[in-house]
């Protein structure tokens, strides 16, 4: 019987070979990143070109390069176009890219941390918690922390909600999809109700309407001056998560297995929950709760680069940025001159995707039961 062990099938990889057969099924990682990088540039250009006033892509580039101080770039013919591109569309595209990237990264990590493919900040009620935090600050006018009060309150709301949903859904060390999604939905409806109550009973009617619009998720009206905070949150979140990618991988094996491979699961999860809540809170404060980006993108990205978080996280960030830029372009144009909240559009794509994912997992479980 000793010898049979050695008779490995001839199809096996030799010990010295590098990345294995996985490479054949999957596109090279560098190619994926390069393609997405180019796609991101194209998308950003389109995001600045398309709108009620059309600015040709070539002109967009001239405006942008000129603004960045490139000497070779000719002076811009139209002042109006320059204002539209630089003051209105560019910050909006930037916020879209940052928010899309951040939500995709957060969704990826959340799926590993709660060990469930349906996890996502919006579905788990974390975005609602963040919204409520922000609304409390707006309605009661408390701003202890100056300009970052809104984000800080959103962060606190996100963290409390995440802890609540996680502890509710967890029983006997295991989280079933049903319990997770149900507790997320239940917590989200309570939080939303509290938020609506606050907004309806507050005296400031116009402000309440504006906030209500914000709770649907939208990128309009953003200015350069407020972009640094979401940008910094995205950078921090992505860097920390990429550094911790191996630990996220271990969680996919199960909590006990992860422990035996050297991960202090409880401590790691606590730290990551704080980080994810921070990123979610800041993004929600900036762009409102935008759903399903964190659900769709990680799953699509895994089809191309596999499940290793060292690959999934950077890819998901780029893909999320591209996705939300285009979603926002659609939100601005499909019903022009009216603007649809981008969160409504992502929900339109995301809802069916969620249902498909649920059915796929159910099928998989059934297969496994038989096998």
């Amino acid at each position, binding site marked *: *019987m*000793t010898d*049979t*062990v*050695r*008779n*490995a*099938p001839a*199809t*096996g*990889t*030799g*010990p*010295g*070979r*590098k*990345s*294995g*057969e*996985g490479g*054949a*099924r999957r596109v090279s990682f560098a190619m994926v990143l390069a393609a997405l990088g180019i796609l991101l540039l194209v998308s950003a250009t389109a995001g600045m070109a398309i709108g009620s006033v059309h600015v040709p892509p070539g002109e967009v580039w001239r405006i942008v390069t000129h603004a960045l101080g490139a000497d070779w770039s000719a002076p811009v013919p139209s002042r109006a176009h320059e204002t539209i591109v630089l003051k209105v569309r560019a910050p909006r595209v930037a916020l879209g890219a940052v928010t899309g990237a951040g939500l995709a990264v957060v969704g990826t990590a959340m*799926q*590993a941390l709660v*060990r*469930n*493919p349906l996890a996502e900040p919006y579905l788990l009620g974390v975005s609602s918690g963040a919204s409520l935090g922000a609304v409390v600050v707006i309605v009661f006018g408390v701003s202890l922390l100056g300009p970052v009060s809104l984000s800080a309150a959103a962060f606190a709301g996100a963290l409390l909600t995440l802890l609540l949903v996680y502890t509710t859904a967890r029983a006997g060390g295991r989280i079933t*999809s049903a319990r997770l999604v149900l507790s997320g939905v239940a917590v989200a409806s309570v939080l939303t109700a509290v938020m609506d109550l606050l907004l309806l009973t507050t005296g400031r009617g116009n402000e309440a309407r504006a906030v209500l619009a914000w709770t649907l998720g939208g990128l309009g009206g953003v200015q350069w001056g407020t972009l640094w905070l979401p940008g910094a949150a995205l950078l921090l979140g992505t860097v920390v998560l990429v*550094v*911790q990618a*191996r*630990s996220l*991988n*271990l*969680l*996919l*094996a*199960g*909590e*006990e*297995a992860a*422990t*035996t*491979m*050297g*991960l*202090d699961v409880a401590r790691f999860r606590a730290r990551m929950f704080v980080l994810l809540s921070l990123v979610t809170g800041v993004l929600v404060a900036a762009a409102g709760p935008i759903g399903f980006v964190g659900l769709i993108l990680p799953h699509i990205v*895994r089809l191309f680069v*596999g*499940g*290793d978080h060292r690959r999934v996280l950077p890819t998901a960030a780029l893909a999320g940025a591209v996705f939300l830029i285009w979603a926002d372009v659609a939100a601005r144009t499909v019903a022009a001159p009216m603007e649809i909240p981008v969160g409504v559009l992502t929900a339109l794509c995301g809802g069916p995707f969620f249902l498909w994912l649920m059915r796929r*997992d159910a099928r*998989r479980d059934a297969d*496994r039961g038989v*096998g």
Partner: protein
Amino acid sequence: MSATELAVEGLTLTAGAHHLVRDVSLTARPGEVIGLVGPNGSGKSSLLRAVYRVLRPDTGCVRVNGADAWSLPVRRLARTLAAVVQESGAGIDLTVREVVAMGRTPHKRLLDGDTAEDARLIGAALEAVDAAGLAGRSFDRLSGGERQRVLIARALAQQPSLLVLDEPTNHLDIRHQLDVLGILRRLPATVLVALHDLNLAAYYCDRLYVLRAGEVIASGTPAEVLTPYLLAEVYGVTAEVAVHPRTGAPQVTFLPGEPTAAIRPVAPPPHRPAQEGSGGTSPLPEEPGGSSR
């Protein structure tokens, strides 16, 4: 990698008011293969979970090379101890190679990449369990037996000097059962393994510990432990035990019917407390791995 010494001392584990394991002591000398047998619910898995540092002891301790496992950093312990546990994944699919690659994690710093040496170890681990052909496959789509072999490969890729396995032969067909136990036998590591099949345990293990209701009720070489009396006592079955002419290991044959007084010797089952056992009072049986080939 030199083998590691494991000592479980006076271990008690509780879940609420219920005792999972009560005052269990056990030793595994470097390089030994120690089998843990006993009926379902006898505390085998709980004992193993305490050894691989998931279940915190209420009293007693687990010592790995003399150091209390719970006082070691998780990552440092993981460079010594690997485990094959019974647990399901997260519903996010990975390839077999990605799963086995996880085993390299405790040897990596935060931003270390995968080296050629890692790739070699991963490939060798897969080949050792006859799973090299599965490397590019989706882990979720494997059969139960294939999955079990891949998890063993992951533990091997961890290069442990102490390997803990909870029923590793579950779901395996007989050939792969023999293969897997043969691998454990040849590893330079110390092995603690819970097994259902008493004949496999008798053949592959240096010593056995028999658990019933959370307590060790017998321990020693397979020949000392596996007696008709003990089998009647622990499992409530009638059995004959003979020495197999070719392997030299005890061979248990179960017989239908309730155990009768006739097969019950009057002597109590042997139980050497671990502390005395480590003195080597009885010679180990002939190396099971050697006699058959």
